[in-house]
């Protein structure tokens, strides 16, 4: 456009002099869209989550074949698989897994229930907050693992101690995230509830609980990870069964392959649980539109 008006000023009456053939007006520059960075994430890659782990596996395999990785440090993937098959054939892996999963599940259920209840009481009343929030923050500052000696004295070395340790670790993220999500519910919705003359029960049901749900799910994802994390520790500190015990025993005999099997099982459990939580999270929060959509 600029070129056009310039030339027109120089040679009035001959509008298209800027074009060599005198046929076309100067074309606008084509817009460069290819190199421009989009602000959305683009289409999601199918099975994208598997690419990173698959790469790791390739590096591990190649390293083992090439002899770069000493089998005493890290046995080859196939020998780990063989060990796993042996352990399953003997029925050991299933037994240990069952024990571990049961412990984690109990700890998780108690922790989530207690954490949610505390978050609601503390989130919905000033008195509740005054009583509950302080102790929870103190508990949060103490590493759960540091509590184990005390818990052992209180609960012995049985299942009670293990489940309690896991529940104590789990309730923290549930409490923190649910409480913060609940407290950050927009005051405009509170105002709306007042103009609609909602009762307190309705207000909790329609505004508070759904409003706190995103925080609860975020807390739950942390909680699941924490549950497995604490499980590892309690099983290695004092246990006679469970995946952690299996790993600890293998350490005594220098059986690296069994240790790896145990670690892989932990990883799979963690991922599967996270996947389950995410599945429910997406279903329950389908009203949201976020960057990920």
């Amino acid at each position, binding site marked *: 456009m600029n070129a056009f008006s310039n030339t027109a000023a120089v040679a009035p009456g001959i509008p298209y002099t800027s074009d060599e053939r005198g046929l076309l007006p100067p074309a606008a520059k084509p817009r460069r869209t290819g190199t421009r960075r989009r602000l959305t994430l683009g289409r999601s890659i199918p099975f994208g989550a598997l690419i990173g782990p698959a790469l790791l596996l390739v590096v591990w395999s190649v390293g083992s074949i090439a002899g770069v990785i000493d089998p005493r440090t890290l046995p080859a993937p196939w020998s780990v698989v063989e060990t796993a098959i042996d352990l399953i054939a003997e029925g050991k892996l299933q037994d240990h897994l069952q024990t571990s999963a049961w412990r984690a599940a109990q700890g998780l259920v108690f922790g989530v229930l207690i954490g949610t209840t505390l978050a609601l009481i503390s989130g919905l009343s000033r008195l509740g907050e005054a009583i509950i929030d302080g102790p929870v923050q103190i508990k949060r500052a103490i590493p759960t693992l540091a509590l184990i000696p005390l818990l052992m004295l209180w609960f012995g070395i049985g299942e009670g101690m293990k489940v309690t340790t896991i529940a104590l670790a789990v309730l923290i993220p549930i409490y923190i995230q649910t409480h913060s999500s609940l407290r950050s519910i927009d005051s*405009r*919705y509170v*105002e*709306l*509830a*007042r*103009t*609609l*003359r*909602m*009762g307190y029960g*309705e207000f909790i049901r*329609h*505004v508070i609980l*759904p*409003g706190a*749900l995103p925080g609860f799910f975020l807390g739950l994802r942390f909680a699941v990870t924490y549950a497995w994390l604490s499980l590892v520790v309690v099983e290695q500190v004092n246990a006679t069964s469970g995946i952690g015990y299996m790993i600890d025993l293998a350490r005594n005999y220098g059986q690296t392959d069994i240790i790896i099997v145990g670690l892989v099982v932990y990883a799979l459990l963690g991922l599967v649980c996270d996947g389950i939580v995410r599945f429910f999270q997406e279903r329950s*929060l*389908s*009203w*949201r*539109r976020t960057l990920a959509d």
Partner: protein
Amino acid sequence: MASHLGGLNGAPVVRVDSLVRRFGPRTILDGLSLDIEKGEFVALLGRSGSGKSTLLRALADLDDKVSGSGRLETPDKKSVVFQDARLLPWKRVLENVVLGLERPDAAERGRVALEEVGLSGRENAWPVELSGGEQQRVALARSLVRDPELLLADEPFGSLDALTRLRMHDLLRQLCARHQPAVLLVTHDVDEAVTLADRVLVLDHGAIAADIVIDVPTPREHGDRRFGEIRSKLLRHLGVETSVLPV
């Protein structure tokens, strides 16, 4: 408060007498008095900070943390339409409309209300899936499904584009003609006020500076001479000097 005296001829639905509202040292409403008749459509104009929203919030019982005095009578059945549609994002459209409505036929009434605002078929949509105008229509349905005797609207079309706004004016006029609530519409759009209202108030320094009955027959055309005169008069009260636009 909140005792409705309707039934008698022309008994006002809203009675405000010497209302004072203060925020700290600032007096926002300074001895304001106002009556709104049954079914009357009142628009409230005023510059920013003139106390429009404070008055509306007082009428909506949303100002319990504000200090002040005065007498205030409003009906129990009243609804508020806010500037934002204020739909709960985690409730589907129909659930938003019947929110807090405790009656066995709530869902049915909700559907009828949605049909009235032209949104039948969108009952199960999420609020984020609607346009701004559609969201505000859901908010209107949510207000009307409660059969209000008083509809309080705080710049309800303020965030809509000009075309949507005109369509919403038509819709609001139709709905008010059918349901006959008394309306207090807070706005800073003079044309909107003159187009829709039976009576326009101008609020200035916490008191009513002008109270003008709009005697232009409906439907009102912006080009109408009387429309232009009222418009200029209102603008003068708002501190804007204009000449009457030539027709």
